């Protein structure tokens, strides 16, 4: 038998029926849903009169539009409240487990999946959200789907998918001090563009990824969609197994041993080939920041904004951001700092911020929000006393949700204001109409909040 990539092995193991002149019927192990992209899919199966095929493999939470203040009160904004209520009603009707507002397991869908042990190596996982790629960090095939596909999974626990091409991105060597997982992925995106991965599923490999914690790996895989790739995957190893073991939904006892034996086979065979291979040197990566309106428009904080004469999209982006080609962003005054999102709102991210801001105060010109990724992250932060560090530094610790990453709720950056954000997208208006987003690591965001202008965190990390 020919050597296979990890992705090939998992894909092939989930094909119910191979498409001859079209897509494969791919079986889905776990389906995560939330309030924004599920209601039309529930309405769809209702209209067809078909049941939800496998409710036990479906898990719901409310995250995208929920307020991050006063979550114990009814949601004030009517449309958001209706969406959350519709999710609750649908979950009750179809027998789906819901971790709604106030539940101890509630949080951003891509944060709770891993922390509850729902996400496991070898699985296929989908959700009506492009950042479902996050779960690939466990050696799972995980990708975002549209609502029509959510309906497909409801009806049949399968999606129709054409198998993507394969790409391997290797990063070897040791990272410099102060360089985080976020910097690695922003660096890669800046090198290969937001469409460089389109049509591919990416396997991240090499010592730089092996050295990362599970949370760091999740940050990397989370943003594989920003390369245009459907998803990213990292082969599971001892770090993965140690993370999964003992979590609520993780297999126990004999089941654990059986699964572990299988998970250990989830590696790319030595002679397997990819459609494309890229490699980078970890030592070349530095703390990154974006200057434009897509995640590939990123530079090392120490570098200057490039120029791309004659490119109208590039010019429009610089005008929107009000930054000049040839200028340095270091020292640029900003207005907001947002620590949150499925990219960087896990406990290690909060610890990284606390390490930088401990004993310091934010600058007066900065509004700083910290939105934990889940109730469990929030509880853990409080248990470790991080909440006190944040409050003393003048940061506002809010309640879990997607928040200002996509600004569906009230957490909006005002028009024209700059926000250094640990989230994943700097598109025009992403954090509020006409707001300006600069993506960075939690460390960079924290240091920027202290100074009031774009700052490399290195001076706080010694």
């Amino acid at each position, binding site marked *: 038998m020919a050597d296979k990539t990890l992705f090939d092995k998992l894909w092939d193991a989930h094909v119910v029926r191979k498409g001859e002149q079209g897509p494969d*019927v791919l079986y889905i192990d776990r389906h995560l849903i939330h309030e924004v992209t599920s209601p*039309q899919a529930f309405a769809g199966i209702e209209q067809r009169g078909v049941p939800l095929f496998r409710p036990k493999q479906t898990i719901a939470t409310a995250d995208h539009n929920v307020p991050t203040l006063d979550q114990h009160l009814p949601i004030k904004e009517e449309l958001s409240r209706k969406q959350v209520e519709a999710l609750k009603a649908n979950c009750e009707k179809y027998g789906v487990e819901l971790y709604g507002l106030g539940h101890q397991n509630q949080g951003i869908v891509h944060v709770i999946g891993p922390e509850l042990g729902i996400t496991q190596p070898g699985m296929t996982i989908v959700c009506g959200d492009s950042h479902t790629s996050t779960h690939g960090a466990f050696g799972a095939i995980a990708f*975002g789907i549209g609502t029509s596909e959510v309906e497909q999974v409801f009806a049949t626990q399968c999606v129709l998918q054409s198998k993507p091409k394969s790409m391997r991105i290797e990063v070897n060597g040791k990272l410099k001090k102060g360089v985080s997982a976020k910097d690695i992925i922003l660096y890669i995106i800046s090198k290969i563009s937001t469409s460089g991965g389109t*049509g591919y599923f990416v396997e991240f490999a090499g010592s730089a990824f092996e050295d990362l914690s599970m949370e760091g790996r999740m940050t990397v895989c989370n943003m594989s969609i920003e390369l245009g790739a459907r998803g990213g995957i990292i082969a599971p190893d001892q770090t993965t197994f140690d993370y999964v073991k003992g979590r609520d939904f993780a297999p126990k006892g004999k089941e654990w041993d059986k699964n572990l034996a299988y998970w250990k086979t989830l590696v790319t065979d030595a002679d397997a080939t990819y459609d494309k291979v890229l490699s980078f040197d970890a030592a070349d990566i530095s703390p990154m920041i974006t200057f434009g309106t897509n995640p590939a428009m990123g530079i090392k904080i120490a570098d200057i904004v490039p120029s791309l004469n004659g490119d109208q999209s590039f010019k429009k982006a610089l005008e929107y951001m009000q930054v000049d080609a040839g200028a340095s962003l270091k020292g640029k005054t900003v207005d907001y700092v947002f620590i949150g999102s499925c990219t960087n709102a896990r406990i290690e991210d909060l610890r990284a911020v606390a390490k930088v801001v401990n004993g310091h105060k934010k600058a007066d010109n900065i509004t700083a929000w910290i939105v934990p990724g889940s109730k469990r992250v929030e509880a853990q932060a409080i248990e470790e006393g991080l909440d006190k560090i944040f409050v003393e530094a003048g940061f506002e610790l809010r309640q879990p949700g997607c928040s200002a990453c996509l600004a569906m709720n009230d957490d909006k950056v005002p028009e024209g204001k700059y926000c250094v954000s640990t989230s994943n997208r700097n598109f025009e*208006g992403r954090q509020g109409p006409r707001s300006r987003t600069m993506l960075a690591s939690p460390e960079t965001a924290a240091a920027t909040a202290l100074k009031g202008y774009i700052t490399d965190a290195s001076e706080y990390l010694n």
Partner: protein
Amino acid sequence: MEKFIKLISPIVPLTLENVDTDQIIPARFLKSTSRDGFGENLFRDWRFDKEGVENKDFVLNRVKEAEVLVAGKNFGCGSSREHAAWALVDYGFKVVVSSFFADIFKGNALNNGLLPVQVSEDFLQAIFDNNGEVEVDLENQKISIVATGQVESFEISAYKKHCLVNGLDDIDFLLSNKTEIEKFEKSRI
């Protein structure tokens, strides 16, 4: 889903590249629980200023009554929101032409009877330069510029073509595989 066979239409030329789904439909307009009405907020922040007044410079406000949107490469990148496809369809588009589409958007479009037509960079430029009517023929998988007669073929999977031409969707097909799906589940235990 409406059947798609062939059309001739003027175009809306959106020459920008990397148009993301947050521009097509901003997140704050995703709060409906139905599939309808999203066209109203299509390209909201490019079409209207903050007071809700039409921006006369934006191409969608200059060309009305067109069923074909032609956009720069990497159209539909970003979020998986199917609302982007719903908004385009609700507004009246039946075809989107670009030299490159983001994966999820492309799938969402096809699932809603919106035909994504991928053309070469050169042909895209020719469409922009001509800025007149195009003919899109799904049966023969050809797109042509009416005024000049320039033609290019485009790819679509035989399965998806069958769905579009007949107005069928994936769920009908998947449901017909139920026995195999159950068999697959049993084989894994």
